Structures are given as structure tokens and as C-alpha cells.
């Protein structure tokens, strides 16, 4: 009768180490397209000028600071859930539709770039059977990924 509690169940991503980064993971599962984001708690609070974030405030912030275009279609997404621990927020989102044959992805992302000058946004795609990762920062606010 052994019970182990999975306390931080969302910390399965690789270590963040000592660098100021946020991580955006895009993946498909059960015919849905998801976006999981992990923010440094202190940095996001600073960006939102709040001690406590809500789905609404994060949704607005992400809508303002990110654009996702897949196969030349502008994609919208919805914040489903926010988890938090001592250091991080995890924001779970779902895109409004699934694209079956992804050929091209354009991402515009300025999250936290104004607040922390050395900040990077790491964008990972687990799509089409491949894992691809990109780093965005002050000098690279837009990426174009082809499959």
C-alpha cells in the first residue's frame, strides 16, 4: 500500500539552470494541439505587475506578446489551467484547432523581453515525429520553422 505523491508533476521538462528563460512546448495529443508554457514566477509577476496571476491576465498577456501562425493560418489558443510552485508558473493552453499536416510555423514572441534584458524564450515543437527547439530573444523575436 505504497503511495507516492507526485507533488510537482509538471517539472518533467529539462532543467532551467541559471539562465533567465521561459519555455514554450507545442505538441499534439489526441488530435488536439497544445501549448505548455513555463514562466519564472518572479519575472511574470513583474511583467503583469501582479503578485497573483489569473487565466484572464495571462491570456491577455500571451495574446499581446505572442502570435502563432501554422501553415499560414493564424492560430488562437485558450489558457486552460495555471499551476504554480515556489519558482514557476506552468500555463496550459490548447489551440483552437488542429492542423493535421504541419508544413510551416511562424512564431512571434516578446514575452518578458522588456522586463529582463537577457531573457530568452525557448520554443520546442514535438510535431511530425520530430523534436525541434529554438531560442528567441531581443534580437530574434520571430522564427520561421519549416517541415
Amino acid at each position: 500500500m505504497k503511495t507516492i505523491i507526485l507533488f510537482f508533476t509538471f517539472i518533467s521538462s529539462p532543467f532551467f539552470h541559471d539562465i533567465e528563460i521561459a519555455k514554450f512546448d507545442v505538441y499534439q495529443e489526441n488530435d488536439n494541439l497544445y501549448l505548455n508554457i513555463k514562466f519564472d514566477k518572479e519575472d511574470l509577476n513583474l511583467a503583469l505587475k501582479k503578485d497573483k496571476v489569473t487565466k484572464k491576465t495571462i491570456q491577455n498577456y500571451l495574446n499581446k506578446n505572442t502570435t502563432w501562425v501554422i501553415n499560414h493560418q493564424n492560430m488562437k489558443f485558450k489558457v486552460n489551467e495555471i499551476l504554480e510552485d515556489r519558482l514557476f508558473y506552468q500555463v496550459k493552453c490548447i489551440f483552437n484547432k488542429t492542423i493535421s499536416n504541419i508544413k510551416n510555423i511562424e512564431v512571434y514572441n516578446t514575452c518578458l523581453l522588456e522586463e529582463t534584458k537577457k531573457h530568452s524564450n525557448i520554443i520546442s515543437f514535438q510535431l511530425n515525429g520530430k523534436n525541434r527547439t529554438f531560442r528567441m530573444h531581443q534580437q530574434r523575436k520571430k522564427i520561421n520553422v519549416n517541415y
Partner: protein
Amino acid sequence: MIRILLFLLFTIIKIHISFSQTDPLRPNVILIIADDMGTDVTPGYLTGNTPMPVTPNIDALRSSGVTFTNAWATPQCTPTRASIMSGKYGINTGVQKVPGLLDATTHTSIFKELANQTANAYSDAVIGKWHIHNTTDYTHPTQHGVDFYTGVFNSSVPDYYNWDKLVGASLVNETTYATEDFTDEAITWVNSRTSPFFLWLAHVAPHAPSHVPPVGTYTVSATNSFRRYVASIEAMDYYIGRLFSNIPTPVLDNTVVIFIGDNGTPNNHLKSYPATRGKGSVYQGGINVPFIVSGKGVTRVGETENAMVNIVDIYATILEIAGASLPGGIYNSFSFHPLLSNSSAPQRPYNYIDYQSKGTGGDDFAVRDSQYKLIQFSDGTREFYDLIADPFELNNLLPSLSVDEQIAYDDLVIEATYIRTDWSCRDLIQNGIETSIDIGGTYCAGLPVCTYNNFTSTTNIGCCDTPLPDESQYSEAVYNGVRYISTTNFPDHDYCYNTPAQKPTQIFRYFEVNENPTLAAEKTSITNITTNRPDMFFGVALNGVKMAPAPATPFIFENANTGEFNWDWIFEPTNNQGSGPDVVGLDCSSAHTGNQGYHYHGNMFEYAENIQAGLSTTTTAPSGPIQIGWASDGFPVLYRFAPDGVGGLALLQPSYRLKPGDRPGDGINSPCGPYNGKYTNDYEFVLGSGDLDECNGIARDVTLNTVCGPQTFNYFYVVTDSFPQISRCLSGTPNISFDNGTGSESCYRPLFQQKITLNAGESINVGTNTYNSVGEYQDIINNWDSSCDSMVVTRITAVLPLALLEFNARLLQNNTVYLNWTTTDETNFSHFMIQKSFDAVTWEDISEVRGKGNLNALNYYSLKDEIFNNNPIIYYRLKMVDIDGTFKYSSIQSVDIKSSNHYSIYHDFSNNEIIVQSIHKDSELLEISIMDIQGKEIYKKHITIHNGKNIVFNNLNHLSQGIYLVRISNHHNLNLVHKIIINP
């Protein structure tokens, strides 16, 4: 008449000599090489040493010529002499250490080239130290085209007044002070020339041994080693003056004199530079040497020149002085001849030296431009300095570089690559296959050049904080073949972090490994073999901290154009340490904090030092293997030293090495540049090159003390000094509890190794909980509750219808053992079966006693057992049987029959007394104490115990209810403890 004829003949000859040696188109050249004389002992350079030598003749050269302040030589004599002789850097001569042989067939010496370029117009000589050979082949100077050689063939003299001198093909003993002898040989040789000459005068002074020079040749009081060293410089200067004064003025006026040091000042005499950065190092103290040029054609009188020059440049410069016309220079030798008369003349754009500091393996090298200097050591580590702002190299700028510094750094990396690979297309010399200066060479057409930042740094951020008590907790238990480990993942040693957010916090974690691990058919990487992302931790240290060496986001090679990571090239954390962007903030234990908590990436230095001072650096094996952790497959992890297979311990070495050559990448999609350890993929496993397999382990027996006692494993891992330090794969089957994605727990739960049996009145504390019910408890590790506030403990035996309050066994005088026990709360109880054993394994029934059945009162029982054998110890227990047949055993009592100390302790309930029964024939003074259940002493006294019954405590009424321990001891071989229960 004869005298007159002889005088006329002598005069004619002398006129002829003077005329031949005063041809302005063929100036004479004297190259004077001082041995082990750096800039900090040369007047006109640094002033750090006291006393400075008095050198009027060298001063005169300086005041009449050009003093170069940025001259580089190699850090030791032989490579420097080989470079002057050949016009090539060490990387091209192959002479990068001492001893070294400059092959006369492969390289064209300056003497041969001078003969070629001037149609044998010059006569030449080397007088003094030779030392570019590693044999006793005395023809070596001749092989290099030297017309005349005499002097010290090897590195130095054993005694300046008693040394072997090579004359022709023979060694002869010489007792003249060496510097004086070389000078006199030089005077004789110069004055017997009939043509322009080139004299290479290589003094052994001021090289050790520092012997006092002849009286009158020095001014300093030579009272200690340094002063004798200074005196030998002054004497050398004296003899330089003697040489000049013995050369006819017209000849001397047509002579160019070059004075240099062959390397920096030896460390024992070094003052101005940081200690150990003198001779033998590629820091400035080892390579920045005095370099003065004066004489014919040197029109810049008394000037100081900051242009970079290199001892290798002497080759081309002397050729040009002699009339040759070179396209910038030749080989690696850039002619500074124009600079002697024109301060605006071209200068070499880079300076470079290399040196095999360790004698074997790779070389160190240094390359600089007018401001910055890059050093790369043989292990691939680099340092980068601003020589203008930091001439003594006290502030390594790596790894955090400004934009300008980064540009300079990249540029120097490129130049070093050119120099070390082929001939540079940016050295202003026509060399290699170039068709003119820097045109047509290998790199001149703009072939791809690695500009990607390839620096490495192994400097950690140190220790800056200390753990609080109880922050670090670790417990371990084994049950049913599984080793359970519970931790707070917090270091028990000093640690550090770059920002407060990275300060370690407790992260509660629970691991399982196989108690008896076996090797698997295939090894398992801790990174995903498809994605290269880290999949799992390698193991857990015995302080509970994870061992997670695999690097991860964002330390990945990045395409500078697209930002895409190339996961084939992940930074090796231990080679990318520091504070700032793109480096890993590893602390004094090669660890730092990620979102999985504090974890080790490499050699756990501070942790090891916490275990045993000096353990992380010593080369002396400890008394036994030191286990530092458990791998995720259950095999132990040892620290540095491990069984050598022949009964001892040895410092085991990994079988990895840097790949040779350059990475195949273009610098855009994947990294380029030399394999230097920046990336994990820079290393390759070479079977047999070390002791360990690809998982840094070895199939060899090791016996370790575990929570279950000594246990032998047939395989173990080793944390090593060099890559991979901590293994990146498992040879057994890793447990899923080490998966990177497995979550943490909400609290720390201590583990217990033994089953716990509670008797009446006993209790245990588990976390914040106390348990005091009578009975035997299952291993608590199998009874986790989902809450940190409580813990479910399952009793594995039925509750018997009685409470056993006490069970004693003591030896009486008549070879009889007296057993007594007390119960209460007897309900539906049947009987006691008294059992005896001589080994505590095999038991026999000796008697049955029916239960009394009193529910609320105390029930007293006793039994006498007569002894008929000679077994030293006899064991007793009670089998307590319920009327439905279920039963439970009491604790085991033993009687030591053979002991000379035949004492026993028991509690006389009726009189509330503590009795010590002795069958010892003699009386003995014993210490008697009463302790509470935590071992805290309440009473203590000394009583002489006589044969028979002794009342040691007779009034226990003031003791409150509870369990107490009574101990008797004689501080020798007696230490008996008996538990008593005080009831209301």
C-alpha cells in the same frame, strides 16, 4: 729588417680584415643570448626586483638603439633556440620542450640560409650554449651549417669554474669562468675574420647554478642566491663590454648587435609577475623577454618600440641585414629590419608562441594582437586577457566578454587556427604556398573559418553558503530486495549560487533501486538516444543530492541565424563554468540548482572534502573504497579510488579522450573549431585507454558497508577527475524512480532498516508521531500514508489476549537458570511454552505453563531450568499461545554461562528493589546506573558486589511511571543493561 717585414705584413692583413668587415652592405651581426634573464631583471624594463643588476654595457645598447617592449620568446631555452635557428614556431619545428632536436635535414638553419642568400659572403660561429639536440652528436652544429662552434653543448654548466667544453669533436675540461671563456673565444674568433661575420654568442649566464663571478666583474653584494644571480648578469654585462672593447672600432661600427633573453626569469627569482608565471609558463612572465637592437643601420637611437616582435623574427631580420630581400619575411619569421630605422614600418599583426609545458601530450599556446592575448592550455581550457589594461594577466576576461572583446577573441582563435594548421594568410609574410604576401595560401581565399565562440572555462563560482542543521536528510532501508532511499535533496556541505533564486531548497524525493543489482545486456544512456534530452538522473549521492551530469536547456549549440538548437552538440557543464550568460554556475561541488533541485554535474569536490579532507585531490589511496552514492541501477558509486583488482586501491582513470583535430561543423548548423571539451560530443571512448568502461564503471568485486552490513557488489562506478567525471550511462537496469519526469513528494519521510518490536511501555518516534502500542511493526517504508502529518503503521500479528510486562533470565549458583515473567490483561489466553536454544536459531520446548487468566491484576510466573551442558550462552523465549492456537513470541533472553562475570540484574516487584545477583566467587566494585529510555543518566553510584544477592537500589517509588534502564559496568569487560518498568 725581419721585424719591419713582419710589421708590414701584419698591417696589410689588418687593413684587409678591417675593410672586409666594414662593408656597409654586409654589416656584421652579433646575436647575444642571455640564459634565463627576464624583463624584471633587465634595466629599462620592469623594476620589481631589488637589487636590479648594474649593466652599463647593455644600457649603452639600449641608449644607442631600439628597445622592444613586446618581444616574445618561448618559455624555455631549447624551443627558443630552435625557433631562432629555423625561423619557425614550435608547432612547425616540433621542438616545443626540453630536450628537443632540431632536425638539420628538415629545417634550413639561419646559417645555411644566410650562406644561400649572400653567396657565402659571411663567416659564422656559435660560441657558448648549443642545446638544440638530444644526442651526443657533436657534428650537429656543422649539420646546421655553422662554420665554427665551441662551448657548452648541453643546457648549462655544473660549475662555472669547472665545466666541459666542446672543442672540435672533443670535450675538454675548462676552469675559466664560463662567461669569460665564451667572451675570449668570441674576441679571438671575431678578430681573426677576413669577411663579414655573424656571431651567435649564447651565454649560459645567468642560468643556474648561481656562482660568484670573478672579482671586479660585478658590483652587487653576492650574499644569497638571488644576489649571485644578479651578480652573474652584471658579470655578463662586464664581458659584453670587454667583447666590444676588443673589436676594432671600424668593425664594431659596422656591426648590428641584438641582445635578447631566451625566456622569462626563473620562478625562484621572479618578483614582478605572479608566482609560478615565469620561466616555463606561457604567461607574460615566461615569454615577454628583453630584446634590444643597436648598431649599424639602427637609426632610431634610444627609442622604445611597442611593436610586437618574436624571437623567431631574428631569422628574417638578420637575413635582411645581410642584404637579402624577403617578402615580409620567411616561414614564421617577420623581418623587423625596417623598424630599426622607421617607426612607421609594418609590424607583425599577431604574436604567437607554443610550448609543451607538461613534457607530453598537447601543447599550451598563446596568441595576441596589439591589445588582447588568448592562452589555450593543453587540456583545452582558455584564458583571455587585455594586456594594456592588465599587463600582469590578473583578470581573465572569460567567459563574459564585451562585444569588442568577443570580436578580438574570435579573431585570435582564427589566427591561432591558421598558425597551428598551416601558414597564416594574415601574418604579412609570404610563406607556405602563397604566391605573394598573404595571397594564394590555404586560408587566403576565404575558406570557411570557425568563428563560433569555442571558449571553455573550468572555474567554478566557489562556496558561499552553508546548510542549516537538518536541511540535508537522507535515510535508506532495504526490504524484500529493494533499497529504498528518502532524501531532502539538500547538500550537507557548503554550496553556492549565482542569484538568490538559485539557492537550493529542500525537494523531497523517494528513490528505489535493486538491492542486488545485475548487469544488463545493454547499457542505458541517461539521455534520450533519439532526442539527446536528459531522461533520468544517474544516481543519488549518500547525502541525498541527485547526480545529474547530463547538460540540458539552454546549453545547446545554437544556429546563429535561425536560433535552432542542435542537440547533437550540448555543452559539457564542467567545461563551461562561471557566472553570466552561456555558462553554467557550478559551485564548489560542481553542482547547482535547477527546477529539480540541487544536483551534481561533475566531481563533487566539496562533498568529498566533507567526507575526508584532501580526498578530492590526494593521489594517496585511502584505507578503503569510499562510496559516494548509488547509481540508479543499484550499483555503488565510488569516489576516485577503487579496488585495483590485485588487492589494493588505485586512482582509476576513465577511458575517454578529446577527439583529435577539428569538429566537422561549419559553425552555423553545428560547431567548428578544435575539439576542446566545450561539448560532450568532443569526447570519444577509447577502449583500453583508461581503466573504466564507457559508463565509467568496471566489473570488479567491491565490498562495502551498507545498511544491511557488509555487501559485495560485482560492479561499481567511479567518479573520476576527468571526463565524464560522473557517468552518462548505466550498466545495469535503471529504476524508474530516477526518471527526470518523476515527481517529488510533499515531505521527507525517514526510513527504518529493522523491524520494530514494541513491548509494553515502549514507543518510537516517526517524524512528529509517537507509537507506543505493544507489538511488532512491519517495515514502515511499506506503509506510507498520503499525508505528511500521519503515518499508518500496520501491526502484522494479531493482538494477543495478554500484555507481557517483563521477562527475565538469570543464572543461579547451582547451575540453574531462573526465568520469571509478568503479564496482565489476560483474556482467552491458553498457555506459555518455554523454549530454549543454544544458537538462537534452533529452539526446543522445555516446559509448558498454563495462563492464570487474571484480567486486571498482574500475573507472576517463574520457572527453573537446570543446566547440563557446557554451552557458553543459553537463550530463552516464551511462546504465548491463545486458546484459538495463534501465538506470539516474547523477546529473547540470554544467559552467559562461561563469563567470569556472572552477574544478572532483576527487578523485585514485591519490594520495588533492583537486585544484582552474582555467582562470581570474588567481590568486585561496579558502577550501577539508572537511565531513562533515551539513555539519560538519572542515578549513578559505585557498589561492591559480593557473591549472592545484592540490593543496589531499594527505593524506586520516586521514579515516575515508565521504562528505565539499569546498567552495571566495571569499565573493562562488563557492561550489562537491564530494562525495568515502573508502574503506578
